[in-house]
């Protein structure tokens, strides 16, 4: 039995990394999947092809989550292809671009536009579907930097904001039976086809993170997909407003 049969899921930023792995995992559990990208057209197309080749259903949609109009068009395309959306994974985010010394106001604003307002835009665009359906699952990707802090101040602040956003929206949408939770991935490196050799370019600080993990394996996208399936499935219908750290025991939150 598949756990996401007949579900319609948008996974933002699913052209590579965690987003791509989640899109493929959802499709393999029977969900109809919207693979979203903003710049990584080739990656997203490849995810769509892999899903189709495995017998799943997916459409690939370009949208910059920080643009309300583009998000609205993405949801319209989801409606046309699959019907109302009941599952949203807010994953699209800018990665850290530098520490405090290089922090500029422009970069701060850009980080917040995508990493925070992008989540707001997508959540608002799909929550009417979920309210009408009397059921929904929203999974926001934050980060362990919310707990541990990190030198990239803009990135860390944006990811902490997502925890507040999750807890607030959980309260707003709970009466509609919509669960809103947060996943805090630890250090997740590359694709599942990335060999350890590719990790030679891990910077020193990443090696220190792995040193602090209780499970010493380098994080892979496939290590985190189980948590996303759990929080999308009926098995977590009484879990909302929670943070789930998937980090090899790095934070012990």
């Amino acid at each position, binding site marked *: *039995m598949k*756990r996401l049969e007949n579900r319609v899921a948008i996974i933002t930023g699913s052209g590579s990394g965690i987003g791509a792995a989640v899109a493929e995992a959802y499709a393999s559990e029977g969900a109809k999947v919207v693979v979203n990208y903003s710049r990584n057209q080739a990656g997203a197309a490849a995810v769509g092809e892999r899903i189709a080749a495995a017998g799943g259903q997916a459409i690939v949609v370009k949208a910059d989550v920080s643009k309300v109009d583009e998000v609205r068009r993405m949801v319209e395309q989801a409606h046309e292809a699959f019907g109302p959306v009941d599952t949203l994974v807010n994953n699209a985010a800018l990665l850290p671009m530098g520490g405090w010394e290089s922090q500029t106001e422009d970069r701060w604003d850009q980080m917040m536009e995508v990493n925070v307002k992008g989540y707001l835009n997508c959540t608002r665009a799909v929550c009417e579907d979920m309210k009408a359906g009397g059921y929904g699952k929203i999974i926001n990707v934050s980060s362990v930097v919310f707990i541990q802090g990190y030198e990239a101040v803009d990135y860390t602040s944006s990811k902490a904001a997502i925890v507040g956003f*999750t*807890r607030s929206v*959980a*309260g707003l*949408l*709970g*009466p509609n*039976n919509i*669960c809103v939770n947060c996943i805090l991935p*630890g250090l997740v490196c590359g694709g599942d086809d990335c060999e350890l050799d590719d990790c030679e370019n891990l910077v020193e600080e990443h090696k220190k993170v792995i040193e602090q*993990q*209780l*499970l*010493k*394996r380098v*994080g892979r996208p496939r*290590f*985190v*997909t*189980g*948590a996303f*399936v*759990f929080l999308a*499935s*009926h*098995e*977590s*219908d*009484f*879990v*909302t*407003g*929670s*943070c*789930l*750290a*998937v*980090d*090899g*025991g790095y*934070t*012990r*939150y």
Partner: protein
Amino acid sequence: MSTISASGLQRLKDRVAIVTGSSTGIGAAVAEAFGREGAKVVINHLGEEEAAQSVAERIRKAGSDAIVVEADVANADAVSQMVESSHKAFGPIGILVNNAGIYPRDYWDTMTLEQWDRVFDVNLKGCYLCSQAVCDDMKTAGYGKIINVSSIAFVSGISLVHYGSSKAGVVGFNRALAVALGPYNICVNAILPGAVKVDREIELDSAATREATDKGAVAAQMIKRRATPVDMVGAFIFFASRTSDWITGHCLAVDGGMTRY
């Protein structure tokens, strides 16, 4: 809801699990769910043989296997005998759910030292004794899952001070044990159930108290319905199964949004 883990996925096939305090309530629901997922389950209880046997019977009917072992988790000898019985029946233990706990209505003004000690012995020391008794099996296998049942009382506090303190102790134990056993690839996680409607409420609380509990819980939760033990089982299956192999030392609240932890 009762079908959510009757999935035929067999995610715990042939795994051996001890679920302490599994004759009733959350423990019984978890034991049954593990059985449906293919695990061989040790049903543990204290003075509730009949209820424990009926849980075991339901697991056997669902096509897996179970034994019933009475043991006070606060008693080291009883715990080691429980593990011996488990070995004889099923072999090495791969999953331990430290669920046995008590929630006596002893209030601050009249609480005795004996009452405090008993709550700590069962709720916290029981986790320690059972974990110590099974962890060699897991070390040998190079893999294992320990799930500690804490409570949202860790986050929000509670007027039953002994209970709240013991369940916060479980979170500390959880994190420390995760550190100790991580190198052996043993994942140790805690589940923080919220307000769960269990049969024990009917035994111990007046109708008026139960009604107030219902109203208070639904008001404080974001999800506007009372939870029953079945609402908890998905999280236990998740932490017991392969899909959570990169998660350890974590606390997950399953509380309908009461704490937003």
